[in-house]
Every structure is written in C-alpha cells, then in structure tokens.
C-alpha cells in the first residue's frame, strides 16, 4: 500500500478500499475499469470478466486473501469486507469470480506448512484461482449424501463422480473437493482435497458445460467430473474423515464474508436510485422531495447501516471470538443478504419503470444488481440452511444465557469492547479456534444487558434527550423480545434433525434480527467519539432499532418514529461527496461528471441546509 493521503479515512483498515476505489475510478465513467457500461456489456454477452480479473491481479489484490504468516497481506476481515464492497458495488460477477480465492482459507486453516506455501505460491506467482467442489446435482445441501468418492490406492486416491453446479469449476487451477473416503463412517465419511489440476492426468477429469444463470451471467458456472482420477496423498487437507468438519468450519468464514457482496450491491442500488430521484422532476419538484420515495430511500439507508453494524461487527469478531462463529456467521449470512435483497426490491419501486430496463439510467446497472444480488442468500449455504443450523443451537444459546455470572459478564464486556471499537486493533485471526458449535455463546445478544448499563451511564448534554430515551427504551424492548423467546424455548418441545417446524424457522429469523439490533447498539456505544457527528448523534440508531423491532413484533407499543430528515441530509451529503453509504463512509472514487445537473442539484440541496 502507498502512504496515506491526507483525505484518507482515519481508520487505516479502510485505506486499502479507498486506494482501490481511486485506482478503479468512477464506475459511471465508461473509461473506468469495471465501469457500469463495461460490466453491462459483458453481462449481455455472458462473457467471463477476464480483463477485469487480470487488472485485479495486477493490482495485487489477491495478496489480501493470503494471511501475512503465509506470505500475503491479509490481516483483517474488516479490511477484507471493505475491499469486497468496493469490487461488488461495480460488478458482482467480477467480485464473486475473484473472491473464490477466499476458499484458500480452508488451507490456511487446515493445511500443512508445505500445503500453505504451495497454495500461496500458486496464488501469487501464477495468479492462481480456485473453486469449491462440494455440491452435487442429486444432493444439494445434503453434503453427507454425496456420491463423489475418493478410493484409497497406493500413494493416494482415485476420485470418481461429478460436482455441479460449481462457480469457476472450469477456469481455475485448484479445486477443493469434498469426497467420500468411508461410506460407513457417518459424519466422518468425507475427506477434503486441495486438488491441483495441473498435476492430474487430463484424461481422467473433464469440465461440464457452462450453466446459464439468471444473474452473474458472465460467471464460469459449470461443473467437474472425475473418472478414476488419481490424486496423490499430499493433496488431502487434514486427516482422512475430517472433510465435513473442515467444510463446516470453512463455511463459517466464507458465509459471513458473503454479506460483503450484498453490501456492495446495495450501495449501487441506492446510489443510482438516489441519483434518479434527484434528477427527475415531477409535479414541479424532484422525486426525492416527494415524501414516499424520500422515506423509502431513508429506510434503505437505515438497512445498510444496520447491516454494517452486524457485518463489520462480525468481521472483527472473527479475530476475537472465532469459537462463536457457528452462530455469528449463520446470523450474518441470513440477515444481511436477505435484508439487502429486500432493500434492493424496495428501492426498485422508486426507480420505477427504469429498474426493468437493460440500457436506461446508468447503463441499466440496476436490473443487473438486482439479478446478481439475488444469488448471495442462496449459494454457500442457503438462508434455510443457515437458519437450520441456528435452530439446532438455539436451545443451547438460551441455556448459556441463563447461566451467565459476574465473571462471564465481565469477560463478555471485555470482548465486546475489542470487537466493536473500530479504532482498536484486533488480534490475529486464529482459524484453528473455529468450533462446530459455540456451546451456547453469542456475545452480541448475551451482552445486551451490558449495553443497557452503558446506555444508562450516558449523559446528555452531548445527546438529544429524546434520542437517548428512545435508544434506551428500544434496547429494553429488544431485550424483552429475547427474554420472551428464551422463555418460550424453555417450554417448547426439543426439535432435532431435519424436521424442524416452520415456526422454529420464524423464531430463528427473529433471533437474527435481534442479534443485528444488539450489534447496532454495541457499535454505537463503542464508536461515538470516532465515527463523526451523524453517527454520534444516535438518531440513526433509534430509527434502526425501531425498524428492526417492528419486523420482530409488529404488535409492540413502540415510541413514535423520530424525524428522519437528518438521515435524508446525511444520505445527500455522502452522495454529494462520493462516500460509501456506511457507518464508515470511506472515500469512493470521485465522480467525474461535474457538469451533471444532478450533482448541481445535490450541491444546492446541501447548501440549503
């Protein structure tokens, strides 16, 4: 990284994203790398974004997928999330195709030193890419039912069977294959292999045809087939039989990170729609000045801020409480992707007819964002699969919560402080600390009472009393909802396996929403002094908590909605200054179309404040 510029964000974990922004340039300018015009053209052609990926490799972004102790530059998931947002706001096809590199965390987690070195070299020296071969046509989410086998032979294994549908199955040098090594061994029946295709006999494997998809149309969606394909023993990751365990732990990492794809998409959906509402005149005023569309965009902004708190919290939480990620990751993968999918739908209403057109308004980027974004909640563990894994742990979450004592509360408070204070360093990520099961721990919700104490200790004058009162009352309401859920679980029948009731899924969704609400409160409490005036003021938090509680329980008697005009003004400010819609509004590439009447309008609106 180059030395920081004066205008850069005070939090240095956002410098890389800012630098990448600057070098990529304004996506509305057709000349920029990954400009909207270019990525739409590629999408229409269903063409793989080869030049874009090469540009990213030349920029050496792939080094940030390799931990420093393996020879790369990765140090922080918070930084990782920020740069994935930068790519994703331009083009999810490229961002997802590039980010299959995050499967390397399987090796960083479970590989030998030699395997790590080999993979790091492959990535750095050969601009290597990889894919994840878990899914099979006949078995979907049921990994243990897989038919691909790895049969032991002298010196290695013979792979047989087919993996499908796999992103980058064809255009990749390494594939992580989950295969059966002992059909009788239940949860120990699978092993994981890091297969380097260059070392295979080409006659023993083949790629399946490109699958045509609804979104990310240029992706290399295909599959791979093995026929008595010999792989040497050294390609196995970990011991024989640990495949499912590694797969589930690896998912904890990648599922949470997937949320960053949605966050990038959400930024563009909101930005291009806001641009439209500022430029379009109806009935003698701009669409942004009509109350309903204005409210819709403000609510979309709230959704983004809420998801930020959940996901940035999780990004940092990886470094602090990796052992809790069987819970955090499921929550974030479900909540952020589904919330932002809904958010994109909400703002599509404001963009109106143009949302449905493939060339109008910013080159037709909206419809592409909407199609591309729709897959994030599905792949890498669908919403249902994530909620299911949460349901299986839910009873333990309640049990653990009921057992907290002074000592465990003290520990939770300390961990929350590190997790949520953005200007504090986080420990190095220790993937070996990931656990299949958090044993009932979830600091975010289990530290809610700590947050309440901290809220009560806050003093106006630096806060508007009405805002603070609402934050407190709404946080109490979040706690009451959690208590009610825990009480209910204490009396409900135990559910196991795959026959969970639909009602359990509804409860799990609410748990996710409550978790997000608590993350917002922690985020605010720990960063009031560092994230600027808008953040510190807390109005966004009161509005967010209210929004979340309405979703959890529409029958609640909540305080009235605070005036949201300051949010509309902040949205305009971030737009006018080309900053990410985020609790950390880092600098985006400057929009170059200065004579654009829309920018003039924004300027005017800002001046009128």
């Amino acid at each position, binding site marked *: 990284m180059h030395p920081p510029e004066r205008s850069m964000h005070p939090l240095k974990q956002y410098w890389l994203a800012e630098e990448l922004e600057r070098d990529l340039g304004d996506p509305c300018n057709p000349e920029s790398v990954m400009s909207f015009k270019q990525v739409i053209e590629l999408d229409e052609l269903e063409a793989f974004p080869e030049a874009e990926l090469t540009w990213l490799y030349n920029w050496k972004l792939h080094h940030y997928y390799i931990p420093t102790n393996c020879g790369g530059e990765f140090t922080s998931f918070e930084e990782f999330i920020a740069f994935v947002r930068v790519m994703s706001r331009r083009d999810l096809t490229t961002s997802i195709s590039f980010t299959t590199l995050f499967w390397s965390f399987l090796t960083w987690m479970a590989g030998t030193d030699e395997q790590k070195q080999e993979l790091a070299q492959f990535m750095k020296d050969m601009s290597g890419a990889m894919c994840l071969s878990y899914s099979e046509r006949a078995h979907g989410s049921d990994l243990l039912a897989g038919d691909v086998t790895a049969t032991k032979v002298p010196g290695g294994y013979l792979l047989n069977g087919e993996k499908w549908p796999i992103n980058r199955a064809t255009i990749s040098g390494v594939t992580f294959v989950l295969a059966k090594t002992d059909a009788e061994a239940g*949860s120990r029946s699978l092993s994981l292999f890091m297969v380097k295709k260059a070392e295979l006999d080409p006659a023993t494997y083949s790629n399946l045809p490109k699958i045509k998809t609804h979104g990310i149309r240029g992706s290399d969606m295909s599959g791979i087939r093995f026929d008595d394909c010999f792989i040497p023993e050294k390609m196995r990751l970990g011991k024989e039989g640990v495949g499912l365990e590694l797969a589930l732990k690896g998912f904890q990492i990648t599922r949470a990170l997937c949320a960053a794809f949605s966050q990038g998409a959400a930024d563009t959906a909101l930005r291009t729609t806001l641009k439209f509402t500022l430029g379009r005149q109806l009935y003698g005023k701009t669409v942004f000045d009509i109350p309903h569309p204005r409210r819709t965009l403000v609510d979309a902004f709230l959704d983004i801020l809420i998801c930020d708190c959940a996901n940035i919290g999780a990004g940092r939480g990886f470094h602090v409480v990796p052992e809790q990620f069987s819970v955090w990751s499921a929550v974030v993968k479900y909540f952020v992707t589904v919330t932002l999918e809904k958010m994109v739908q909400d703002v599509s209403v404001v963009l109106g007819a143009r949302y449905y057109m493939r060339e109008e308004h910013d080159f037709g980027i909206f419809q592409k964002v909407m199609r591309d974004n729709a897959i994030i909640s599905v792949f890498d563990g669908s919403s249902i699969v994530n909620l299911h894994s949460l349901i*299986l742990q839910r009873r333990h979450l309640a049990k653990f919560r009921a057992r907290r004592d002074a*000592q465990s509360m003290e520990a939770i408070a300390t961990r929350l402080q590190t997790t949520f204070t953005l200007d504090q360093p986080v420990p190095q990520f220790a993937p070996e600390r990931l*656990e299949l099961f958090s044993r009932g721990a979830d600091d975010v919700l289990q530290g809610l009472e700590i947050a309440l104490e901290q809220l009560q200790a806050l003093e106006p004058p630096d806060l508007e009393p009405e805002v603070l009162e609402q934050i407190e009352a709404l946080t109490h309401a979040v706690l009451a909802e959690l208590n009610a859920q825990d009480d209910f679980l*204490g009396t409900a029948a135990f559910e196991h396996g795959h026959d969970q009731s639909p009602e359990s899924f509804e409860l799990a969704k609410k748990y996710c929403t409550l978790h997000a609400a608590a993350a917002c409160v922690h985020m605010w409490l720990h960063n009031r002094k560092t994230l600027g005036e808008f953040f510190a003021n807390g109005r966004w938090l009161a509005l967010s908590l209210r929004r979340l509680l309405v979703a959890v329980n529409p029958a609640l008697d909540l305080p009235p909605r605070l005036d949201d005009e300051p949010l509309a003004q902040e949205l305009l400010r971030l737009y006018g200054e080309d900053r990410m819609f985020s609790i950390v509004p880092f600098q985006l590439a400057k929009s170059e179309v200065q004579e654009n009447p829309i920018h003039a309008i924004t300027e005017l609106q800002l001046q009128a404040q």
Partner: protein
Amino acid sequence: MQLQNSSSKPSDVLVQADLAQENSEAIAIETIQTWIVNQLAKQLSLSAPSIKVEEPLTRYGLDSIDSVTIVGDMEDWLGVDLPSTLLWDYPTIQKAATYLVQEMNIAPGAIASEPETPVQPTKETVGKWSLWGRGK
C-alpha cells in the same frame, strides 16, 4: 484402545487391582450410557428402552450438528470440556461412554437429571450488571 470389543468380558489374566478398576470403569460407563439414553429419550420423545446403546445415533434421525450439541449437554453435566466431535468419532452411546471412561478417565458422579433453565421474571444483579431475570 479396546473400543471395538468394549462389551467383551474382562480378560482372565487381569490381576486383582485391575479387576477392581475394571469394575468401577464398568459402573462409570453404565452411568454415562444411562444418562445419554435418558437425555435422548426425553429429547426425542422415545421410551428409554427403545434406545439401543450399540446403535449409531444417526439411526434416531439426528443431524451431525445435533450430535455436536448433545456433547454440549454432556459437558454441562460432567463439568469437563469434551471434543465436540466425540459422537462423530464414537457414533454409538456405548462407544462414546467407553471412550470417555477409558481414554479420558472421566468418572461421573451420581446421575443427576439436568436442572431446567431457570427463568424467573425478577430483576437480578450479577456483578455490576442487572440481568432482568436472566441470572443464575
């Protein structure tokens, strides 16, 4: 390890001391088995006698993650940390109980059925934090 034949009779050549140890081991294994059987019977709404200690747990419709959370329950009961994949590696009640006693030297006390989660709607304080009814 003698997991595969843990139900076989003690060898005749064992000396007296070993016999005594074998005996207390057998009691410990029995205790753990009974606890798991009762726990599963309650959770799966089955009668205890219908749960066979030699059957793989997956036979009762448990997901891989269910087996992991049952280990969590066992940790709470025994007050020790266990490998969360215990029931993956030792997939019957008998194998798991034998492993715990013979390899991890776990000697459970009398079987106490687990206390239900206490839920009193009273305001309590733990350390400096009010738990609004959620403290121990």
